[in-house]
């Protein structure tokens, strides 16, 4: 398609004293799957609504394929959107819901039938075309909403927490389907979620938002492995933080100098060592790796593994998985334990980006 580029510049939106969007600038590439990730109140939904045209920002610019969209009414934007609670029309059946955007575009009946059927096939709902919306399950509604959003082949697809109302299994299944669909259709997709796992699974890039600002914009891998501040790191995985002290050019944990593979970004003063269960090792090389010593507090059985909680000096707590393939016995509560982090897995972040 080659089109579907979105350029957001200096967008501000305030509700009274509350700054929902605080100078957001963001480029979304044609065909890209970009996720807006953040806690509630971070501005992610507001930003999506600005793109869709439901919110008019106080200032800023929104260019779509080099055309200024900022004052364009929503019905003239040609963007597909999947709403959080699907927003299907209860007075129309499945077919009519999906056909609605085509009817508004004055497309002839035969083409409508063909394209609606096609869109419904894409989401595996072609057999239920005559159903009323009230007769559908949550997952089925989700698919219809998706079909309605893609049926007119928009260059850009917006999704506002589309999977949040589904149960866990269905959600994971739909994540895969959405990703495949995106690969197939190739439309620029802006996806809003507060679920980091969803964001990591689906996105080409993730923009982490907090208090109306983009904190970090990067690939899922980099967001996860190299968060640029404590906020982003805390949003990803089961993260624990251990305070580290900066001494000249090195960082110290419990008076021991940390071996780091890369210089911490935006971290001029004391920082935090990120500790995630899967990054910790049961064994390590005292010459090369960083050692963390503590005492086993308790052990929780998780099916595929045991989660071992370890308390450290200074009232800190971390945890590590024990799957049985480590070559080490499962420890018992009260036992002293030594755990290891490779320099590559040792990441230090500052409190916030400047």
């Amino acid at each position, binding site marked *: 398609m080659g089109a579907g580029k979105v350029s957001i510049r200096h967008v501000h939106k305030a509700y009274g004293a509350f700054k929902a969007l605080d100078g957001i600038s963001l480029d979304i590439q044609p065909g890209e799957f970009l996720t807006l990730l953040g806690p509630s109140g971070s501005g992610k939904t507001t930003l999506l609504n600005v793109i869709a045209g439901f919110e008019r920002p106080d200032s800023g610019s929104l260019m779509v394929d080099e055309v200024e969209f900022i004052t364009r009414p929503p019905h003239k934007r040609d963007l597909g959107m999947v*709403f959080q609670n699907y927003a299907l029309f209860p007075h129309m059946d499945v077919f009519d819901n999906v056909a609605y955007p085509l009817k508004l575009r004055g497309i002839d009946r035969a083409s409508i039938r063909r394209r609606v059927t096609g869109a419904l096939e894409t989401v595996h709902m072609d057999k239920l075309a005559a159903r009323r919306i009230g007769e559908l399950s949550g997952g089925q509604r989700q698919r219809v909403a998706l079909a309605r959003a893609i049926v007119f082949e928009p260059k850009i697809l917006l999704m506002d927490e589309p999977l949040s109302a589904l149960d866990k299994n269905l959600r994971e299944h739909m994540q895969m389907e959405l990703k495949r669909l995106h690969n197939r259709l190739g439309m620029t997709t802006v996806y809003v979620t507060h679920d980091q796992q969803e964001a990591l699974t689906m996105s080409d890039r993730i923009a982490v938002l907090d208090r109306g600002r983009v904190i970090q914009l990067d690939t899922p891998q980099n967001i996860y492995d190299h968060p640029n501040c404590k906020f982003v790191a805390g949003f990803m995985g089961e993260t624990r933080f251990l305070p580290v002290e900066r001494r000249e050019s090195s960082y110290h944990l419990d008076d021991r100098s940390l071996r780091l593979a890369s210089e911490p970004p935006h971290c001029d003063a004391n920082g935090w060592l990120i500790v995630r269960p899967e990054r910790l090792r049961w064994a390590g090389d005292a010459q090369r790796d960083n050692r963390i010593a503590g005492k086993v507090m308790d052990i929780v059985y998780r099916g595929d593994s045991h989660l071992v909680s370890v308390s450290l000096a200074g009232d800190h707590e971390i945890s590590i998985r024990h799957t049985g393939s480590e070559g080490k016995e499962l420890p018992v509560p009260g036992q002293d334990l030594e755990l290891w982090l490779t320099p590559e897995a040792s990441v230090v972040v500052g409190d916030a980006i400047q």
Partner: protein
Amino acid sequence: MTVMVQEVKPAILNNSLLQRSRSLQGISFVGLSLPAAVLVAAVLIIPFSWLAWLSLFDAAGNLSAENYVRLLRPAYIESFLTTFKVAGLVTAICVLLGYPVAYLLSQLPQRAAQLLMVFVILPFWTSVLVRTYAWLVLLQRQGIINQWLLSSGLISEPLPLVHNMTGTVIGMVHVMLPFLILPLYAAMKAIDPVLLRAAANCGASPAQAFRQVFLPLSLSGLSAGIALTFVLCLGFYLTPALLGGGRVAMWSTQIADMVAKFANWGAASALSVVLLVVTGGILWGVNRFMRVPDAWGGKR
């Protein structure tokens, strides 16, 4: 094995226990609804049966269809048509005036909507008689409106605003408007505003979104409001009597005359029975043909 036996026994016991508790629940349900059933019988079924019974006897007390045959005379047919004409006209005007008000109320923030709602409901708190006389003061020849129009030079002769159909309809619309607005507002309030965003996102202009999404979804409330207003209009007495100048011969006026002026209970009962049956028929028809999902259109 012993474990099995121990588990089965209480299960059987529980079944009978549960069954008993279920039937007890049923009995208490009947018990709770008994006062309501008695009330309905006392205030609805018994008086109506008595009414229907009375209508079967002529003035001399003989069993006859005279009271119903009488209704085929021109005076009653005329009055019947007038009643429906007035009810239809008032309902139509209420829809035209009430729909935008209900729409505005449903779109306003809660606080503003509550404040405005007070104005909608205000007429409920004043007596119909007072309101009707107030209209007389406003509308009559030397009333406020005509005096103002005359003094401003817009008209040279007072407009005939009251003591006719115009005055009746104005007064009745005023009384009836809340009955249309309230169910309509409730239905509109239940429409998820996101649906209008979804329509816009699909490419619908605000007008299209209103016509194709909001309007169909508000139809259930509208039909409820129309049915309520129309049926109440059919039985309206006071306002047509005071503002109609004697020209608007509503069915209810005939009933009132029959009882109050001519003490002819049989004839009055026949009039009432006919009104009741027609009203019931309309409600049944509305229920039958305007069922909510069908009102929402779509494919059948």
